[in-house]
């Protein structure tokens, strides 16, 4: 399918997403909504759909960039400690500067995420045998260490439940006024696209990049910066969504290859589409209740990922 096809599909699914919910709003109401319907649309439904699209694009692209930088298809925000670092940052903000606004909390989450990404990269650089499975295992270990630090502080302050709730991605609480920080991921995604060619070269390794006259360190740092911005704003607004950054880039890579200039738009659109569909499913399965999106993505993504793994053999 071409880009235009994905785009049309995305718009269609996004429309479907807007019209699903407990309050019945039909397509015709959009032209002549009563006051309540207008309120629900602008305060809840449209922000929700928008944040799904942004998070879907952002997390998929972040996964792809991490995979390029580590030269490992199994690395993603979930398996590189990125999500755990963002969570730790949020917790610290929550404990030490409780009056901090959304933006400041996102900033602290960003600082932690960026630092953790640098540390993770440093660890993988030192691994002698860069085995394809070993690197993400180290990432998961690293993430668990960060997570246990979070648990420690959360336990001492009796907020274990709050912290665990952050971990489970949830779009039902997205409302106008509390999700706008997500738009910070837009410039990050844009920069990623500008650097697409350079990230392809980075994916071929440091020696290869140097041969082609690329400033390797600089491009890696820009990549980590974009990933950290995106992941931290997603975690702070909707929570962690596992597997998305792993499955989407891998599916696109299998279908369209690894030339990022060509495949980046596919990864972005497919990521958004995937998340929207999972969210719709999550809202319909137990209607009028919701299955948290993290669970749906985890199950669908996990199954897809297993299929991918077996097909690679």
């Amino acid at each position: 399918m071409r880009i235009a096809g994905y785009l049309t599909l995305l718009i269609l699914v996004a429309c479907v997403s807007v019209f699903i919910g407990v309050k019945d709003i039909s397509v015709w109401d959009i032209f002549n909504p009563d006051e309540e319907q207008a309120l629900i649309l602008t305060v809840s439904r449209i922000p929700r759909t928008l944040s799904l699209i942004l998070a879907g694009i952002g997390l998929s692209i972040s996964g792809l960039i991490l995979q390029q930088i580590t030269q490992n298809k199994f690395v993603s925000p979930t398996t590189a400690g990125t999500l755990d670092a963002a969570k730790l940052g949020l917790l610290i903000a929550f404990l030490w500067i409780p009056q901090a606004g959304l933006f400041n909390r996102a900033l602290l989450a960003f600082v932690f995420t960026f630092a953790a990404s640098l540390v993770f990269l440093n660890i993988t650089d030192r691994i002698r045998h860069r085995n394809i499975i070993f690197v993400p295992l180290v990432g998961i270990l690293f993430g668990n260490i960060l997570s246990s630090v979070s648990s420690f502080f959360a336990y001492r302050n009796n907020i274990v439940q709050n912290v665990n709730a952050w971990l489970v991605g949830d779009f039902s609480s997205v409302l106008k006024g509390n999700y706008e920080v997500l738009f910070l991921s837009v410039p990050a995604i844009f920069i990623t696209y500008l650097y697409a060619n350079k990230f392809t070269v980075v994916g071929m390794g440091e020696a290869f990049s140097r041969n082609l006259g690329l400033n390797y360190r600089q491009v890696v740092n820009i990549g980590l910066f974009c990933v950290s911005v995106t992941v931290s704003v997603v975690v702070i607004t909707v929570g962690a969504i596992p597997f998305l950054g792993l499955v989407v880039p891998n599916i696109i890579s299998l279908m369209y290859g690894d030339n990022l200039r060509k495949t980046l738009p596919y990864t972005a659109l497919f990521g958004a589409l995937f998340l929207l569909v999972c969210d719709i499913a999550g809202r319909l399965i137990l209607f009028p209740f919701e299955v948290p999106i993290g669970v749906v993505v985890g199950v669908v993504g996990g199954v897809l990922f297993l299929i991918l793994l077996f097909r690679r053999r």
Partner: protein
Amino acid sequence: MIEVKDISRSYGEKIILDEVSVSLPKGKVTSLIGSNGAGKSTLLSIISRLLKQNGGTVLLDSRDIDDYKTRILAQHLSILKQANPLDLKLTVRELVSFGRFPYSQGRLTPVDEEHVDRAIRYLNLQDIAGQYMDELSGGQKQRAFLAMVVAQDTDYILLDEPLNNLDMKHAVQIMKTLRKLCDEKGKTIVMVIHDINFASQYSDFIVALKDSRVAFFDTAERVIVPEVLQKVFDMEFKIVETEGKKICNYY
């Protein structure tokens, strides 16, 4: 000309290169030979600024390589490392196009496209240009990488064991291409090579490294003699001449 001046490099206590100096002539094929751990690859990496030396300088056309901007240097000198760990799903043509990266940063101009086409033809890759790298055999892969370097169009081409893992037929193919690049296009080729017979057949000059130093540097003709090789490798050599070509027998 590449002038290596007093280059030293050590890893911890272990000295790999000890004030090595050598001038590699322009427009010739020069092979670096020596036992494992003699410092051949390290020297090649330092010349191509992939590795930093502890002391000494490398001059490329009388200018310190550290004074070149990375991007400009990449238009003069290219390096192909052994075993390029390419896991990425790129087509041959996409890979070759990246050879133009130092010039266009990825946005190919018509001139770049022409270079890419020519490089693909030069290595006879037309038929598989659209295939993904991970579908190719070792020989085809190596040719694709070489095509990328040809597209990069640098005066100096450095190769670290270009024949690694290739069967005889493909090894000969690669060496003939390198010879052609030198003879027809005037490229300077510098390579690390393990097979002494390939070094002897295809190089103009040979640098023999031993114990972190340059043991011998001369024309291939004069290095491929039993006395020299015995000193370099610490083993018996017999040299047989057939049809005017020297073949080393060391088995």
